[in-house]
């Protein structure tokens, strides 16, 4: 894997590994008796494993390739494989979490396996592990192709990818040990947060430096989205995680904010984690892989500009719709509601732009499951943003908040949009990267598509039902003016939906496992084929970055 680094680069990589190992050792020693000590051991082991890889390459001869005539795809390939690994782990956890709500004793009676501890393993596993790795890997691919330039650096892409995964592992193992800040989607403790900031700064510098090398005057739209993802996530992450550790030798810290200010900061973060992690980055994927696969230019460049700035500007205001009818001052709630409704315009502009791009290529959508993944993803994107804007209206939120309706909305977005666009992108990029003719089995892709679609639909319908039923039961009064149902009455009503959700999730998980198998077999067994183009060049004619308008 590391053979393509020059001798000097291998030495730098080795130095970074040594520094990491020392950091791990210090953490392990200082944090003895605290979960931080275990995390130190994990850092140490991780550094050791990477060191082995680098040492294996260190005796090899210098790479012979001419770096100006090829792209650097090794980190992209590793990132995609890791993303699939996390997909199976994270969704497997999702099915387990879902099963625990249907059959609460489905655990080994251990402290680490309770719902509260494994739920964040699911959310972080799918959002950061699966989504994050897919974003990093595809961003490396897209920025090189659309800039027609090689990555600016060979150690830094590995640093970002592996460093990010170290963050994910520390996060997930921490939850099982009870290490959490309790802030949704920002659960990891202070040292993991600091580490992520370092990784993220390197990521930003890598992105900007690669763009600076581009052989193309304009920066293609997919890159704006990836750039917005990198920048805004950095701002959100730093502000929301401001905290004071109880001790430098322990994991526990206390948020800098309290009460109502903390709630607003958390949901400013939380909603924009949706916007800039689960939306902007994946729109970057959509804007590159969908036109590429359909071999059609983006329907409207102008519309893409409008929706880009609309999304960047409007989303930030919307966080307070998570706090309707709470102790947050009403003027902030009203602002959040207003901007959430306006957000529908740029959201639908993006979804519409994607679907219109397919005009004239519908026969391909019919025949090609990969393109169908992306088409359905765009539809679910439109659907979940409509639903979101609707739920942000105060009166609707009074019913939906705190119920499974929110969970249904989340998964319409997360499974229907985020996961489907990612699988579509993976299926279209894997043969190119490993220089294969096609995927190992198109039938498995087809199977995966239907499993994923069925799983999502079952999941979302089950949660819509259970959420609305529960919300209505909570507010039903008897004729004598007392509440008609106790809380436990609603639990009984939920049970069948929880069973259905677990089944839908199992279908979805099966699809993800098929994907992992199919990619593995493609790498191992599919017939080879060198792409004709696909190398850095300054000529638009030899390698158009994306399909151009006639």
């Amino acid at each position: 894997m590391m053979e393509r680094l020059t001798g000097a680069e291998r030495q730098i990589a080795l130095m970074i590994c040594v520094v990491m190992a020392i950091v791990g050792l210090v953490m392990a020693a200082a944090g003895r008796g605290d979960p931080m000590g275990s995390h130190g051991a994990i850092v140490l082991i991780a550094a050791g494993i990477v060191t082995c890889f680098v040492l294996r390459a260190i005796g090899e001869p210098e790479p012979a390739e001419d770096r100006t005539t090829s792209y650097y795809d090794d980190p992209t390939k590793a990132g995609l494989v890791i993303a699939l690994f996390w997909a199976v782990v994270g969704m497997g956890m999702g099915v387990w979490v879902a099963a625990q709500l249907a059959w609460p004793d489905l655990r080994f009676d251990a402290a680490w396996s309770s719902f509260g501890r494994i739920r964040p393993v699911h959310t972080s596993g799918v959002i950061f592990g699966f989504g994050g790795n897919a974003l990093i890997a595809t961003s490396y691919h897209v920025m090189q192709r659309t800039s027609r330039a090689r990555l600016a650096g060979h150690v830094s892409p590995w640093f970002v990818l592996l460093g990010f995964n170290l963050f994910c592992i520390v996060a997930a193992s921490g939850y099982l040990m009870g290490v959490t800040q309790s802030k949704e989607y920002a659960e990891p403790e202070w040292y993991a947060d600091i580490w992520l900031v370092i990784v993220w700064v390197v990521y930003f510098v890598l992105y900007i430096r690669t763009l600076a090398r581009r052989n193309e005057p304009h920066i293609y739209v997919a890159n704006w989205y990836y750039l917005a993802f990198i920048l805004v996530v950095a701002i959100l992450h730093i502000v929301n995680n401001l905290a004071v550790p109880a001790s430098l030798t322990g994991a526990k810290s206390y948020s800098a904010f309290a009460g109502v200010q903390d709630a607003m900061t958390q949901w400013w973060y939380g909603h924009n984690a949706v916007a800039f992690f689960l939306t902007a980055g994946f729109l970057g994927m959509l804007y590159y892989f969908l036109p590429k696969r359909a071999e059609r230019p983006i329907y409207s460049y102008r519309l893409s500009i409008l929706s880009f700035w609309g999304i960047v500007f409007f989303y930030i205001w919307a966080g307070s719709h998570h706090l309707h009818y709470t102790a947050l001052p009403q003027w902030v709630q009203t602002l959040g509601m207003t901007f959430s409704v306006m957000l529908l315009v740029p959201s639908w502009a993006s979804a519409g732009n994607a679907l219109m791009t397919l005009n004239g290529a519908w026969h391909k959508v019919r025949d090609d499951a990969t393109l169908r993944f992306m088409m359905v993803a765009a539809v679910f994107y439109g659907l979940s943003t409509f639903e979101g804007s609707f739920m942000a209206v105060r009166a609707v939120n009074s019913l939906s908040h705190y119920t499974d309706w929110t969970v249904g909305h989340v998964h319409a977005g997360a499974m229907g949009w985020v996961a489907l666009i990612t699988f579509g992108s993976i299926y279209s990029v894997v043969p190119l990267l490993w220089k294969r003719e096609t995927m190992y089995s198109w039938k498995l892709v087809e199977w995966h598509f239907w499993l994923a679609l069925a799983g999502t639909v079952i999941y979302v319908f089950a949660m819509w039902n259970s959420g609305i039923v529960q919300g209505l039961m909570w507010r039903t009064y008897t004729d004598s003016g007392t509440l008609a149902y106790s809380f436990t009455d609603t639990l009984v009503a939920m049970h069948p939906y929880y069973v259905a959700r677990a089944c839908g999730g199992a279908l979805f998980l099966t699809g993800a496992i098929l994907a992992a198998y199919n990619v593995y077999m493609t790498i191992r067994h599919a017939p080879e084929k060198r792409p004709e183009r696909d190398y850095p060049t300054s000529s638009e004619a030899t390698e158009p970055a994306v399909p151009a308008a006639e």
Partner: protein
Amino acid sequence: MFRKILSPFARLFEFHARTHYRTERHSMALTLGIIVAAGVGGFVEIAPLFTIDETVEAAPDMRLYTPLEQAGRDIYIREGCYACHSQMIRTLQDEVDRYGPYSLAVESQYDHPMLWGSKRTGPDLARLGNKYSDDWHVRHLVDPRAVVPESVMPQYAFLLDRTLETESLPDRLAALRAVGVPYSDEQIDNADADARGQARPDTDAADGVSKRYGDATSVRHFDGQRDRVTEMDALVAYLQILGGLTDAAFANQPPGED
């Protein structure tokens, strides 16, 4: 006519597209544009919450968590109870009827972090304190389905066997003071002893608790075990103070919305 109304918008759109087309050649200009566009909303909504006085009501009777309660709160966070239980009663009448007076901002004034929650897989806990006996809580945490057969809550029997770690409490209170909770030096220095004293009413350490945190503080064997202080003690002590830091919410509150 229609065209006339729309034409300024069309021109604005055109201008916007052209400006973008120019900045899009410069990655740093794009970077700045994104930071500014994304910065405005957060600033306008968050900054005033720190400066506008009406945001948080005044409550002179507001008290702080004792070290034992704070330790319980840390366990509540560690176990992820917040994933299923909210601590925020909305201003809706059915919630007021079910759980009690709606939550005020001041009640979580010293909550670093807040635990308002976003999903009610179980009921809201904002006013849980003194609703059930200590014994009920212990039995419920040891085996939820023995008490509520329909419950889907995990069991936490292990809390009863784990001795509470109290040595780090002075550090934890000091960190809380650093972020704005007004603990005194004395409270911080004695946090370790106070935590153990609050769960052992028959020891000398118990007197310090009432002295430093007020006579209304509950000092008792929360988990029913006389000889040791466990994580169960801490968690139950925390659950019993929920909603009890101040009476502000009970003072003639306007009715909830329908």
